[in-house]
Structure formats: C-alpha cells, structure tokens
C-alpha cells in the first residue's frame, strides 16, 4: 500500500458517463509521487478522458479525484483554475502559441501568473530554454521556424515555467522519428531527475510500448474505462493479461 502522503493522484471509484455512454467505469487507482507512470491503452479506451479528469477539465459523474491531497470535486471553477498551476502539460504537437516566439511562449505563463519584472522573466525563461537545449539563436524564432523536436523542447520549457509538481505528457513520442523519440524520452527522464528535489510526478499517455517500458517506473493498461493491469515497468511485459500481450505484440 502506498502511504497517503505519497500519492500524487488518487482516482477514487470514478465513473464518467457521456450521454448514456460509460467512458470511465468505476476506475480506482493511485499514482505515486515522484515516479514516472505511463497509461497505455487502445484508441478510445478513455486515456484522454482520464487525463482531463486529473487536470480538473472534466468532473466525474461519480467518484472523486484527489490530486496532491486535494479533492478536485470539492473545488469551484475559480479554485480549479488556480489549482491547475500544479500541472505542466506537454501536448502531442507541443501546442506552442504560433503568434509568439519561443521565448515569448515560455514567458507567457510568467506574464500571466507572476509579478516578475521583464528582466526576471527573461532570465527565468532563457534558463529554462537553455536547460532543454534550446540555444539563444532560436529564442526569437516563431514556432513555424522550429523543427518538431525543438518545438517539443520549447513546449516542455513552457510547461515547466511555473514549477509544476505534476507533468503530463500526451503521446510524447507518437509519430516522431526514432532519433527525436530518443531525445524526447531522455528529456522526460531528465526533467524528472532535475525537478525531483522539489517533487515531480510524471504521467505519460502513450501508444508507444517500447519507449514507455524504458523510461517508466509503473505502467497501467486502460481498457474500456478500466485499469486492467498496473505493474512496475520491468514486470509489465510479462503480464499474463491477454489484452496487454496483444497490445505489446502489435
């Protein structure tokens, strides 16, 4: 059993019904603090829906979601919005604001949510960009002028700007070439390491079994709104769940 103080996310008997259609079905599981946990599953299994519940963008039809000890279903909309600053999220295609330069993208959350001076913002943002290996020459480039891999790194820098305690990765390696995939995986592990001292849990949603098993501590398998397998990454491949085996051997 995981000590309640060591839970980053506790999904407590969560059911989500969309117009009569059950997408999350009495879901019950815990994501421990300071670990990398990956949620795998076929298309339509409910992964994105689960992610939106963890972020408080959707509320469960039944059940509770606890994040860092806070029951999200008890918060009002304004509180939820504030609470969301505990999260950083890297989107599949980085979702950089395309009218802003790389630097402006990273400075955006600082502008919106801190009282930093422009110099402080520049300082903080440029350090973050350097830490994800974006050099100064690229600071003033627009997202359209950056490669896919660079965009992901800028997206990661932006997600880390407000020192989140939980990083969410949506399909971080889907559709990337092997070299960029490797780079992104290393970045996830490195981010986790660099931020561990102040607490950092990483949650990954993915189709990519191979990459997942290499970098995760735990792997969960979601099927039709249920977690049907949840194991340390090293044991996951040996699961005797048929669906898991089917998924791995695709």
């Amino acid at each position, binding site marked *: 059993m995981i000590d309640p103080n060591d839970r980053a996310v506790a999904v407590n008997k969560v059911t989500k019904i969309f117009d009569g259609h059950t997408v999350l079905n009495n879901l019950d599981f815990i994501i421990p603090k300071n670990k990398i946990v990956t949620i795998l599953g076929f298309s339509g299994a409910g992964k994105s829906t689960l992610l939106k519940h963890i972020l408080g*963008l959707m509320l469960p039809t039944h059940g509770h979601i606890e994040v860092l000890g806070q029951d999200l279903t008890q918060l009002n909309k304004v509180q939820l919005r504030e609470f969301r*600053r505990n999260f950083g*999220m890297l*989107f599949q*295609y980085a*979702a950089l604001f*395309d009218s802003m330069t790389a630097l402006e993208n990273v400075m955006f*959350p600082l502008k*919106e949510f801190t009282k930093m001076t422009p110099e402080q913002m520049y300082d903080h943002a440029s350090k973050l960009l350097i830490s994800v290996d974006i050099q100064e020459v690229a600071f003033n480039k627009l997202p359209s002028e950056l490669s896919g891999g660079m965009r992901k790194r800028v997206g990661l820098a932006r997600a880390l700007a407000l020192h989140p305690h939980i990083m969410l990765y949506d399909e971080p390696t889907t559709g990337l070439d092997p070299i960029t995939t490797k780079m992104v995986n290393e970045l996830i592990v490195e981010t986790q390491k660099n931020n561990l001292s102040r607490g950092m849990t990483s949650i990954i949603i993915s189709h990519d079994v191979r990459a997942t098993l290499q970098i995760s501590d735990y792997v969960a398998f979601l099927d039709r709104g249920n977690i049907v397998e949840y194991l340390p990454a090293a044991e996951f491949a040996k699961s005797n769940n048929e669906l898991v085996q089917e998924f791995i051997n695709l």
Partner: protein
Amino acid sequence: MNTSASPQSSSWIHRRIEKIGRQVIDAVDGLGLIVNFTGRVFYWAFKPPFRLKIVFEQFYFIGNKSLLIVGLSGAFTGMVMAYQVYFGFQLISVDSLVGPVVALSLAKELAPVLTGLIVSGRAGSAMAAQIGSMKVTEQVDALEVMGINGVQYLAVPRIIATTVCMPMLSSLFLFIGNIGSYLVGTKALMIDEAMYLSKLGEFMHMSDFYQGFIKSIFFGFIVSVIGTYFGFSVTKGAEGVGRGTNQAVVWGMISVLVLDYFLTSFLVKIL
C-alpha cells in the same frame, strides 16, 4: 423517421422536403449555439483580467486588414453613385441634389453595410482561421490547462476591437465616398461646387449619420461574434479550419444583411 412511410415517400419531392426540414433544424440548432456563445462572451467580458493590450493589438490588426479596401470601396461607391443619381435626376432637372442623395444613401445604408461585408470577409474570416487553427493544434487546450479561458482570451478582445473599429471604418467609408461623389459631381458632371455643398448642408442632418453609426456598431459585434464562434467550432484538421473560415464569411455577411433590415425598420421609427 419523421414521415409515415407510404410507398411514394422516397420520391423526389419527399426527399426534398425532408432535406429542407433538416436544414431548418440545423439552422435553429446553430442559432441556439451562437446565442449560447454570445452569452459566454458577455460573461467573460466583465470578468478580470481585462486584456487591453490584446484589444489594441486586435484593433490594429482589424484596421490594418480593412483600411485600404474600405477606403477604395468608399471612393468608388461614392463615384458610381454620383453618376447613377445624376443621370436620373438630370431628367427632372434636380441634378443639384446629387450631393445630398448620395450622402444620405452612403450614411444610412451603403457605408455601414458595405463596410460590414468587407470586415466580415477580411477580419471575420481571419478570426475564424486563427482561432480554428489554434483549436486543432491544441493551443486552446494549452490555454485552458494554464487556467486561461479561451473565450475570454481569444474571443472577447476580438469582439470588443471589432465593435469599436467598425463604426470608425464605416465613417471612413462615408467620408471618402462623399469626396468621391463630390469630385465626380463637380469635376466630371459639372455641378456647381457651391451649390453641391450648400445642398449637402441643407439636406443632411446629424440623425442621418447616427443611423449608420449605430448600425455599424451592431455589425461589428455580429461579424466578430460569428467569426470567433466558427473558429471555436472547428474540430478536425486543416479542412475543418477551411470550412470554419468559409462559414464565418458566409454567415457573417448574411447576418449583416438580415440585421440591417431589422435595425433599419427599428431605427427609422426612433430617429
């Protein structure tokens, strides 16, 4: 499912009626969604933070996009109108009235309506395209995850900016249109300059000007609400963005024309 099926029910006429019925239902549904969206716009418009900087940026963007074409359309509309009115009025020897007649049509109808159509085509479509592509590339989700409401951040500033910008652009249309009419009237059609101006002063009243001004405020509002609405309604890929942009223009223009009718019938009674 809605027709009691007789053997002939699959005939051409039935299918037609069914299709029209479905389109009416869709249109009513769509109208409901836009009304709901407008409600959200008002809700978020009055909640802090107020992002004046983005309003100014948008104001500049809309003005910049539309200024040249509004000016050109104004000039040529005024010039053409002067000709048309002159050749009619000349027959009954009231050609000195060209000035006020052109000015009145411009002030009450042509300036606000044509400017509304132009801004819908230029800025309304751009809004749908920008927001639509932000939607499909998850930039709107990125805002939400950061705790920033997409309607507040993206739609509200654009709608405020357009609502303020439209009457100015329409006034510009009116001003340049009158210059065009004056030049054609006095230089090409040889109406006496002093006569042209004195008749203009005699027949134009401030209330004629208000009517167009008030209309253009409403046009600015509706065109930007529709532009941003169709941006947010984009769900899939690049084709989705194209379709949203297209619909924003079509419905923006239609709503300007329809709204013009209702505003006119109302305003002529109170002004």
